[in-house]
């Protein structure tokens, strides 16, 4: 359910870009990624129960997504920074889950192909923005820095989900190596500072979220909640 929530929430955020992207090709690309993630969310949530009940009738405190994916879009650079951090994580994680057997394996095996594309897209844009103009470099660096403190949570062990502590440490090391490499090629500095806030690490997974998340859910759930029991 934690992974389903990640995919659901990030998909929603990307859906907010529709009609606002900097270039038509990105309207297509961002919507495409959002759709892939929504597809993953539906599969994962269906494992746990009724997808619509889980998406539309849970309150903020019951959502298990990481705080990273609920962060508002900001400018295009911030959106790309979020995509980069998350898609590298997701690609590594799903790769492992696909090999690991268990209930997630078939879903992960399907999703990992999509996620490789998402990671490539984020990486290509990180290079372009980092090594583009002065302004794009500045914005990309800012986006990466602002979201840095939400990245530690990705590697907090989640109860009942996949890799054990040792595997998680390995995942984190690989993630760091990949991010470091992309940022170097993009002429961007690796953000400094803590990878999580003073707040409990792994907060999102425990249902402790950031303030913008409640508003996002209010918008997402409003219509469904206004018509209890209706089918659509």
């Amino acid at each position, binding site marked *: 359910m934690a992974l389903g929530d990640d995919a659901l929430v990030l998909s929603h955020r990307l859906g907010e870009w*529709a009609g606002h992207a900097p*270039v038509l*090709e990105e309207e297509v690309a961002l*919507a495409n990624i959002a759709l892939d993630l929504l597809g993953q969310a539906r599969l994962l949530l269906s494992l746990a129960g009724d997808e619509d009940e889980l998406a539309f009738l849970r309150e903020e405190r019951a959502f298990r997504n990481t705080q990273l994916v609920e962060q508002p879009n900001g400018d*295009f650079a911030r959106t790309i920074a979020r995509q980069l951090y998350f898609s590298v994580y997701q690609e590594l994680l799903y790769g492992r889950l696909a090999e690991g057997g268990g209930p997630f394996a078939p879903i992960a095996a399907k999703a990992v192909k999509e996620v490789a594309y998402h990671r490539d897209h984020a990486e290509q844009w990180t290079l372009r*923005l980092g*090594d*583009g103009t002065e*302004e794009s470099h500045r914005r990309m660096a800012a986006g990466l820095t602002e979201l840095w403190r939400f990245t530690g949570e990705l590697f907090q062990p989640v109860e009942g989900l996949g890799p054990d502590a040792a595997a998680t440490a390995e995942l984190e090391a690989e993630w760091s190596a990949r991010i470091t490499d992309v940022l170097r090629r993009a002429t961007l500095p690796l953000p400094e500072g803590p990878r999580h806030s003073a707040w409990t690490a792994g907060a999102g997974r425990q249902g402790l979220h950031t303030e913008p998340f409640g508003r996002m859910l209010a918008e997402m759930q409003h219509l469904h909640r206004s*018509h209890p029991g209706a089918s659509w």
Partner: protein
Amino acid sequence: MTAAGTTAAARTGAAPGPAAPAGGTAPETPGAEAARAVFEATVAADERVEPRDWMPDDYRATLVRQMAQHAHSEIIGMQPEANWITRAPSLRRKAILMAKVQDEAGHGLYLYSAAETLGVSRAELLDKLHSGRQRYSSIFNYPTLTWADVGAIGWLVDGAAITNQVPLCRCSYGPYARAMVRICKEESFHQRQGYELLLALSRGTEAQHAMAQDAVDRWWWPSLMMFGPPDAESSHSDRSMAWKIKRHSNDELRQRFVDICVPQAESLGLTLPDPELAWNEQRGHYDFGAIDWQEFREVLRGNGPCNDQRISQRRRAHEEGAWVREAAAAYAARHRADGRESGERRAGEQSTGRQSTGGPRAAAHGKADA
């Protein structure tokens, strides 16, 4: 579909060469008579005119205007529907709606590419949209006030678009006709989904049914206006028909649409907001009430409910995205020389939407929007 490919073809066509007929902008050159005869024979034989072929300046201008307006409509048309993506009431509906809005962006891309074969650039056309010198379909100046509007747009607006566009699959200009074949397939799919959405509401709770009826009441007349002014007042019709860009008159298509919709509304369990709607045995068609052409003219003039909002949002997206396009261009320029070539570079150029289209070729046909 690669924009670069079609652009290259257009450039070859624009430069008079031994193999190509005389360039489109020089009707006085010797051989122009012959070129015109070839063009007319092609149209008469129901064959396709291709980018390299000679064509009358007016034919080119008419196509650019129509294709640009069509592309703009796809792009602006994303807004009223995207308005509901974040509020879609089920995950299935949300996925369908996202896919639809994505398709619309894709249709815009095909159509701009097809228009580029006529010697204009996407950047130039977007600029004309943003500055109000080119139009988009009047229908997108109406607001989506409820979820049912998403269904009404699918059923009625896409339905009207398909009725208009299916004949364009046989349009005399090859690139446009081919784009339409692809677009019409996807549009038909959207239309069925819209119908199905309304059906679910109509058969749902009382509140859902009322929501569906209200949406149909608000979208019916604007959908009929999508076919354009009555034949008697349509300024471009005759020539477009003669050139086989257009195959049927506005009123013919509008009638066809009404005839299709009435039984569909019945099976939806919804009514259409026209007391004069009645089957006419003699004509074999439905009669329907008078359209409020005053409203139509007001919307075209910019006084519709959402004209300002739609164009400001489009302009804002473009302006706020400028630094992103500049970054992609700067990156592409910097890495052109070194080894990191091909894949990355091409992606960057495509993303900027300015794949060296401006320049001499655009100047040669720059007057294209009449």
